[in-house]
């Protein structure tokens, strides 16, 4: 979910690729975004405070995105807003002897979610807007000779700005007192503005620029089962989206020992929001205590498509292709709890949670002993794949028909503060 962090690593490594000096001086600029995180988790500070867990609970207006089947929980109209402040911490591999890294990033404050839910008999309609990615980063690091591969790696610099918005029409239907199905038709847009260079700002060697937008229709399908009054189990599938963007090459690229200037050449690349499948459960253990847990399978392997552009070593002699690159699918685990204290006319809640963020950086698989493959191996496989652990906590208050929640999420990749409001009509 919060792949942004590790994504930043990806971008780092890829810009590190850019840094390849001698033999590998090119960069895979399109790979800037392949490690970026998406906010595929449930919107809303309530879910955020509980370890970003909501698939099995899905009992407010944010269910339109997290699990549309949960919309059936609502018996009256409800409106939800969310604002989020994110401090991005993208760890990039910089040239060095021991796999040193540096962190880059930015702070983003945006209105991130809005939904309106309208119950209609056994059905529910929902309109929502959700920003699943708003990434900004500016980075720059110097080149250095890397003993491990016996070659010089260029420095790199660049900027990344990516916005991925979704606009959805959600629907749910209650089939039995125990079972609800739901789905959302999602119109998803991407707006990318990236620029990456190897070398230094005063002496850029090569790179890519991507300034493009695209839109796709995608969807979410969910189910919510309530075997008892206190337990509910949910499943949701997010279809993902693959956008086609145009990237422009800049500078000279080493091909068969000769620098070839390709400035202005255009290539089509694909920006992928991966598919996701999640299972979740909630247990209202006490009147004032709810436990929740989700397990989410994120198909990061979707990120490497046929249009995966290998910027480095375009030379066919190096025999590098998309098949050399991969991102592993991962299971994310989320768990949390909410304790509510009821007073006359006011409910106070405190929440806490934990979640895992398995590494999903771009990986390189060598297929021969050529130098280029050694360089790629260094660039993409140096940093150990670790699973990050994130912690969340938050609180909420409901007065009358208004609820305000706040949550803080801390993880190695990004820190977030989320504020959301819910209004019942």
């Amino acid at each position, binding site marked *: 979910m919060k792949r942004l962090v590790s994504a930043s690593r990806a971008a780092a490594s890829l810009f590190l690729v850019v840094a390849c000096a001698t033999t590998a001086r090119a960069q895979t600029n399109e790979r800037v975004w392949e490690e970026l995180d998406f906010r595929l988790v449930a919107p809303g500070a309530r879910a955020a405070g509980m370890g970003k867990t909501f698939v099995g609970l899905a009992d407010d207006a944010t269910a339109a995105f997290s699990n549309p089947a949960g919309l*059936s*929980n609502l018996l009256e109209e409800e409106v939800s807003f969310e604002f989020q402040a994110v401090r991005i911490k993208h760890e990039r591999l910089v040239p060095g002897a021991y796999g040193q890294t540096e962190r880059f990033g930015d702070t983003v404050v945006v209105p991130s979610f809005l939904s309106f839910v309208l119950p209609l008999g056994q059905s529910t309609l929902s309109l929502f807007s959700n920003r699943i990615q708003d990434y900004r980063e500016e980075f720059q690091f110097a080149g250095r000779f890397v003993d491990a591969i016996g070659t010089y790696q260029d420095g790199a610099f660049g900027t990344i700005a990516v916005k991925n918005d979704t606009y959805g029409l959600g629907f749910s239907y209650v089939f039995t007192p125990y*079972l609800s199905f739901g789905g959302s038709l999602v119109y998803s847009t991407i707006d990318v503005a990236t620029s990456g260079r190897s070398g230094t700002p005063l002496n850029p060697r090569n790179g890519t620029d991507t300034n493009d937008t695209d839109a796709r229709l995608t969807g979410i399908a969910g189910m919510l089962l309530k075997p008892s009054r206190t337990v509910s189990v949910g499943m949701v599938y997010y279809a993902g989206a693959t956008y086609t963007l145009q990237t422009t090459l800049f500078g000279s690229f080493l091909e068969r020992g000769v620098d070839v200037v390709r400035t202005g050449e255009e290539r089509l690349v694909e920006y992928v929001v991966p598919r996701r499948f999640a299972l979740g459960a909630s247990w209202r253990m006490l*009147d004032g205590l709810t436990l929740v847990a989700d397990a989410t399978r994120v198909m990061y392997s979707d990120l490497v498509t046929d249009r995966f552009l290998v910027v480095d070593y375009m030379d066919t002699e190096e025999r590098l292709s998309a098949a050399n690159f991969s991102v592993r699918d991962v299971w994310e685990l989320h768990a949390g709890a909410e304790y*509510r204290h009821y*007073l006359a006319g006011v*409910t106070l809640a405190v929440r806490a949670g934990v979640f895992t963020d398995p590494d999903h950086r771009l990986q390189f698989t060598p297929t021969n002993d050529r130098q280029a493959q050694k360089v790629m191996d260094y660039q993409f496989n140096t940093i150990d794949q670790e699973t990050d652990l994130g912690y969340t906590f938050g609180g909420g208050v409901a007065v009358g028909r208004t*609820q305000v929640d706040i949550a803080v999420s801390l993880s190695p990749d990004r820190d977030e503060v989320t504020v959301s409001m819910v209004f019942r009509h």
Partner: protein
Amino acid sequence: MSPIRSKIARFALASGTLLCAAAAGTSPVAKAAERCDCNRPEPVQWLVAEPMPEGSPRQLFNDFLFRRFQRVAVARDVRVPAASLAATLRSIAARPDPGTLVMTLDRNDYAELTREPSNRDLLSKLSLEVANARLVTLPLHVFVPDPRVRRMPTAGRPLRLLYFTAYNVPGAALIASIERMLPQGTKIKTDDPWPNAETLAQQLWESGDDRYDLVAILDEEPSTNVARFLKEYRRLETCDRLKRQQARGDVSSSCAQLMQRACRGDALRDADRDQVRQCEGSDGPSGPLLLPIDLGGSTSVPPNQLPAPASHLMTVLIDYEGQEFYDFRTQPARPGAIAVVRDALQGASPTSDAYPLLMTNLRARRGACCAQELRRVLGDVYIAMMPLVAGNRDAHDVQASSPVGSYLLNAVLLGRDDALRSLVLYGRLREQGDEEKAAVLLQSRNLDLRASPDQFLKRLGVKRDDNVRRQFSGDPVTSYENALQEICRANSGGTSRDKALERARKLLYACIESNRVPKSMQSGRGLWSITQYDPYWQLTRIGLIESFNVDPGPGCP
């Protein structure tokens, strides 16, 4: 002040009831009923004396009661100034009209009127009854069996009173308070020590000079003794009724078996009461009636200085076997109220036909003929309580709580096997910390608190909520909130009232199905919650609104 002392004080300061029962068959209303034409309801003329006491007309005639009057005699409603009431009566006497009823709500007027022997004579000759003619205030639930209605105590014979109380009320103080409110010269006799509850029931049922005339139950809740007493009384009553039914040769085998069981001394169950009703057919049972009277709020006024009413609040009453009764309540705001009451009673003779029996059994006083008409008349005129609610309770409290206590307790004690109201009363007792009484209630009503929602709704004769969405959501808060909104919508009037109440009822059934018990704070979906969550009570509230057009609240936002 301890709770008990407080209750005693309230008891002593509270006042009670006018239950004008046209006791014997010589009652003018009874005569009117006998003369009425079943096929052509007799129009009834109401003469309402004006001006009414300050603040009272609008309240006494508010809503339901006033409309009811109008329904009865809308075409012939005549209002006369209080000053000319006597003259009006004389003119009516010159042209006797059995369909004429005069109602005055100003007890001073009536007291003034009846001070004159000629007026009393005039009244006795007219087919005329005056509501609140004789005010008897008793801070008690008063209970008199049917046969007593026809055998009033004769002059010189003390009224034998039996009272139940779970509190340590000094007997002398109780008797003195009651005697002070009864017509002068009326003596009350009690036994000390009492026999057991079963024996008391038999003594009340049996005739003879040793019989009891009245039974009073202090406070709103049943005690163990009361429960046992009522149980035994019901058994005796059932036995007697079915015997009479059998004598008419109109008893099925199942009814005969029931009679045998009842007369043999077997305890009756709720289901038996249903069968009794079936056995008795349209004639219906003539069971005893018990009117609970709220003691009102506490006060520091000594018992012999009861405050007087300055305003009157009409509140409910009781729906028993399809009968309706009304409870007139007043608020003490001026001194000397008890004197007013006493004065109003001075003209009444304990030996007169209109002896102010505190309780009557309406069913026994009507035949199959004219039941509806008689019920309306009796409902409006004869059964009227005027307890003074003492102390510092404001009008809202009085209106809100009085009907509730009456409604609930009557439902519990007099059958109507209404599990819903029984549960509400149970909840009230628990809230008040009266665990012992709550336990008695559970036992006496065979309430099973472990009953599942399905069982409970089945007992109410209610189908499960067919709203799949509500069942799925299982959110009692929203359903409850919506039910309250519907109730308020119904209260706002309009033709959709019944539909709104029905919607509210369904929502409340859904709450019950969600298997959540009444509580001061009910949680729901997410962080939403609601206070004072009690779907059982709200269902009762709907019943009150539907039956009496009285909403005991809470109010609408």
